[in-house]
C-alpha cells in the first residue's frame, strides 16, 4: 500500500490553475523527486500536502486517512516530518534543545509546566544529532550555525517523531555543491535504514538524477511525466518544458 496518495489535487489562485488535477503515489521506502520549472506548482502541491494550504478539489491520503483540511501539526502527528526551503529552527535555543522540543512534543508533554525541558529526552536527541553528524555542536546556540549545518539540524528534528514520510522542500537550496551532495547522501542512507518514504522538490538536477528512485514532473500545474531517471531524461514533454519555450508547450497541450 502506498504511504501517500494524492488524488486529482487542484488549487486555483484567482483564475490561475496553480495545481490542476495532479495525482501520484509514494510507496514505502521510496525516494521521490518532484521537479518542474519555476511556477510549475511544486510549492503549491507541497504546501497542500503539509497542510499549509487547503486544496480546492481532490484528496490527499496518508495510508487510508484523508488529511485535507488538517492543520500542519495534526499532519505531523500522523507521522509526517518536514524540512523547509528556508531552514527554520528555534534561534533562541541550543541545537540539542531544538531536537528535544520535537521529542517532547512527540511524547505529548508540551504543556508540562514543571520538569526542566533541557533534561527531557536529551540522550535520544543526542543520538539523533549523532546520526546527522552534528553531535559536537549540540550545546551551541542554533542561530550561530552555518546554513548547511542548520539543514542537518532540521533533518534531525524531522526524524524525531519516527516519521513514515518525510517532506523536504528544496533540501539543498542555498548550499554549496559539496555540502549538497553530502546532505542528500545522508538523507538517502537514513531513509534506507529506516524504511522512510521521502517526497522532495529540487532544482539541482545532479541531485535528482543521482539519488531519486522515481521522478515526477510538473509543468503549469499539471503532472506531465512520472518515471525513473532514464525515462524522464528521454521524455519528450519534459525536454520541451525545460528546453523549449513555454509557448510550444501551451500549443501542444491545448
Amino acid at each position: 500500500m502506498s504511504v501517500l496518495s494524492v488524488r486529482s489535487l487542484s488549487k486555483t489562485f484567482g483564475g490561475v490553475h496553480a495545481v490542476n488535477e495532479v495525482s501520484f503515489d509514494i510507496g514505502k521506502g521510496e525516494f521521490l523527486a518532484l521537479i518542474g520549472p519555476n511556477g510549475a506548482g511544486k510549492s503549491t502541491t507541497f504546501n497542500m500536502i503539509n497542510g499549509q494550504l487547503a486544496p480546492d478539489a481532490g484528496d490527499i491520503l496518508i495510508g487510508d486517512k484523508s488529511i485535507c483540511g488538517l492543520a500542519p501539526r495534526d499532519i505531523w502527528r500522523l507521522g509526517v516530518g518536514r524540512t523547509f526551503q528556508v531552514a527554520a529552527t528555534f534561534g533562541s535555543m541550543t541545537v540539542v534543545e531544538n531536537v528535544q522540543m520535537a521529542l517532547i512534543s512527540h511524547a505529548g508533554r508540551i504543556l508540562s509546566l514543571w520538569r526542566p525541558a533541557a533534561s527531557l529526552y536529551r540522550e535520544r536527541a543526542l543520538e539523533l544529532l549523532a546520526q546527522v553528524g552534528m553531535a559536537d555542536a549540540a550545546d551551541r546556540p542554533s542561530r550561530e550555525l552555518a546554513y548547511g549545518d542548520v539543514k542537518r539540524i532540521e533533518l534531525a528534528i524531522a526524524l524525531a517523531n519516527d516519521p513514515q514520510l518525510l517532506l523536504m522542500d528544496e533540501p539543498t537550496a542555498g548550499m554549496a555543491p559539496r555540502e549538497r551532495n553530502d546532505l542528500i547522501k545522508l538523507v538517502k542512507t537514513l531513509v534506507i535504514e529506516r524504511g522512510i518514504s521521502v517526497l522532495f522538490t529540487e532544482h539541482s538536477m545532479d541531485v535528482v538524477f543521482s539519488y531519486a528512485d522515481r521522478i515526477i514532473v510538473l509543468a503549469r500545474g499539471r503532472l506531465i511525466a512520472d518515471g525513473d531517471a532514464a525515462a524522464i531524461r528521454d521524455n519528450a514533454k519534459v525536454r520541451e518544458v525545460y528546453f523549449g519555450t513555454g509557448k510550444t508547450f501551451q500549443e501542444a497541450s491545448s
Partner: protein
Amino acid sequence: MTLSAFLFQAINGLSTASGLFFIAAGLSLIFGVTRIVNIAHGSLYMLGTYIAYSLAMKIGGAVGFWGGIVLTALIVGAIGALIEVVLLRRIYRAPELFQLLATFALVLVINDATLWLWGPEDLLGPRAPGLAGAVEIFGRRLPSYDLFLIVIAPAALIVLHFALAKTRFGRLMRAATQDREMVGALGVNQAVLFTSVFALGAMLAGLGGALQVAREPANLATDLAVIGDAFVVVVVGGMGSISGAYLAAIIIAEVKALCIAIGVVDLGFMSVNFSKFTLVAEFIVMAIVLIARPYGLLGKPQGNVRSVAEPENPIRPATPMLKMLGAVILVLLLALPLMAQTSPYLLVLGTDVLIAVIFATSLHFIMGPGGMHSFGHAAYFGLGAYGAALLMKLAGLPMLAALLAAPLVALIGALLFGWFAVRLSGVYLAMLTLAFAQIVWALVFQWEGFTGGSNGVIGVWPAAPFDKSGAYFLLALACAVAAILLLRRFLFAPFGYAMRAGRDSPLRAEAIGIDVKRIHWLGFAIAGCVCGIAGGLFAFAKGSISPEAISVTRSIDGLVMVLLGGIQTLVGPVVGASVYAVLQDTVMRQTEYWRALLGVIILVLVLAFPQGIAGALSSLTRKLGRKSGGAA
C-alpha cells in the same frame, strides 16, 4: 426617545467624525509608508488646537481664525518633519516595540511642553467668524460650524484621494506602502519621502486639532483621549487606507452617538444607561472588526518588514553566583522591616517596588519569551485590584480570601481577552490589548453604581496582622518571590520552551506538532493571572483603587520596566521594575514635569541601551570574560 432626537444625534455624530478622520488619516498614512504607529499623533492634534487658539487670540478676527487654522496646519507639519528628522529616522530599523515606546515618550514630552507653554487651564477659542450662528434641524439648534465640519472631512478625503492617485508624490507613497524596499531599490530617496509623509500626516493632525478650536476647549488630556479613538478608527478602517479611515470614523462616531441617543433603557430587572457606555461600545466595535477582518474593513495584509532584532541567547539555569546574589538580596529584604524602624516610608516604597516587580515579571513572561507585546497589561492589574476590592466590599470576603481571588478574576479576563489577542501579532496585537485595557478602564470609570466611577473603591484596608506595614511588606515579598520563581520554573519547562518556539518560528513549531495559538493563549492567561496578584496587593497597600491607577500609563510603565531591565534576560524585569519604581518614587515626585523626564528616560533607553540594564551588564561581563580568557 423620538426619531428626530435620534436623527439629530446622528448628525451630531457626523461632525465628531470629522475630527477623528483627520487624525486617523494622518496616522494611517504614516503607518502605511514608515510602518511606525505614531502614538504621538494625538499630541500633534492637541498642539493644533493650542496653536490655533493662540493665533486666533493674538491676530484676532476672521484672518486670525481662518488664517490661523491654515497656519497651524503648516506649523504642526513642520514640527512633524522635525520629529521625523531628529528622532524617528534613527529607529526605522529598530524593533516595533521600540518605535512604539519612542513615540509614546514624545507624548509625554509634548504634553509637558504644552503645560509649560500654555498652562494647565482649559482654553476655549473664539466662535468661528462667519459661522457663529446655528441652524434649526429636527427642532433643535445645530451650530453652523458643525455643519461646516461635516462637509470638510469628505472634501479633504476627496482631495487626498486625488493627490494619492494622480500626483507623483502620491504614487510614490502608494508604492512605498506596498513595498518600501522595492521603492528604495528603484532609487527613490527614502529619507525625503519618509520626512514628507510624516510632515503630511502631522499636518492633517494639526488641521484636525485646529478645526476643533471653535468647538471644544484646548485641553491637556486631549492627546491620549484622541489617540485612543484614532487607533480604533485606523484599525477598524484598515491601516494605510484613507477611505477606510473615513468610513471607520463615521461608524465609530455614529455608534457613540447611538449610545447617547438610546440613553436609559429599562430591561425589566435593571435599567441600563447606554450613554455611559460610549467608550466600551467603541472598543467592542474594534474587537469585533479585528476578529472578523484582522486587517480592518478596507485594509490589506501588510507585507512583512524584515525584523532586525538581534536574536537572544539560549536560556541557562541560574549560575551559583546569581543564586547567591538572589539569596543575599532576599535576606536583606527580610531584614528590611527591622531596619525600617527609623523611616517607615522605606517599607511603603519597598512594597511598591515588589508590586512593580510582580507586574513587570508577568508582563515580561508574554513579551519576552512569548513575543506578544501587550500594551494593555494594566487590564489584568485592574481586574485583580478591583476584583479583590469589590469582593471584600460587596461580597464581604475576608482580606486574604479577596487577595486570593484577585488572580482568579484576572485569569478569567486574560483567558477571554487573550483568546482574541493571540489571533493577531505585532502592532495589531499591541492595539487590541490596548483596546481591551481601555474597555476595562472604561467599564470601571463609567459603571459608577458598581465600581464607584472616578472615585473608585475606598476603605480597602488589610486585616490584622497585615495592617502593619512591616507585615504587609513581608506578605508582598512572599508573593513576589513565589511569582518570580513560579514563572521562571514555567519558562524552563516544556511550556516555556514551546512559547519561545512559537515566537522564534511559528512555522517550525507547528511542523513539530505545537499548537502555537493555544500555547500563547495559555501563556497570556498565566501572565494575566500573576499580574492579578500585583493588582490585589496594590489595592490593599493603598487602601483604595481608582480608574487612574489602571490607566494606559500603567501599561506603559510596565513596558518601560521590562525594556529598562532588558527584554532578553530573565532577571531583566526584576531589575527594571526595581530601578523604575524607585526612580518614580524619588526623582519624579520632585518635579512638576515628571512626564517629560520619563519621556527623556525612555528616549535615552531606546536610542542608547536597546538591550536594557541587565542585558547591557551581561554582554559587558561576557566581553570582559572573553578578553581575560584570551589573555590567559
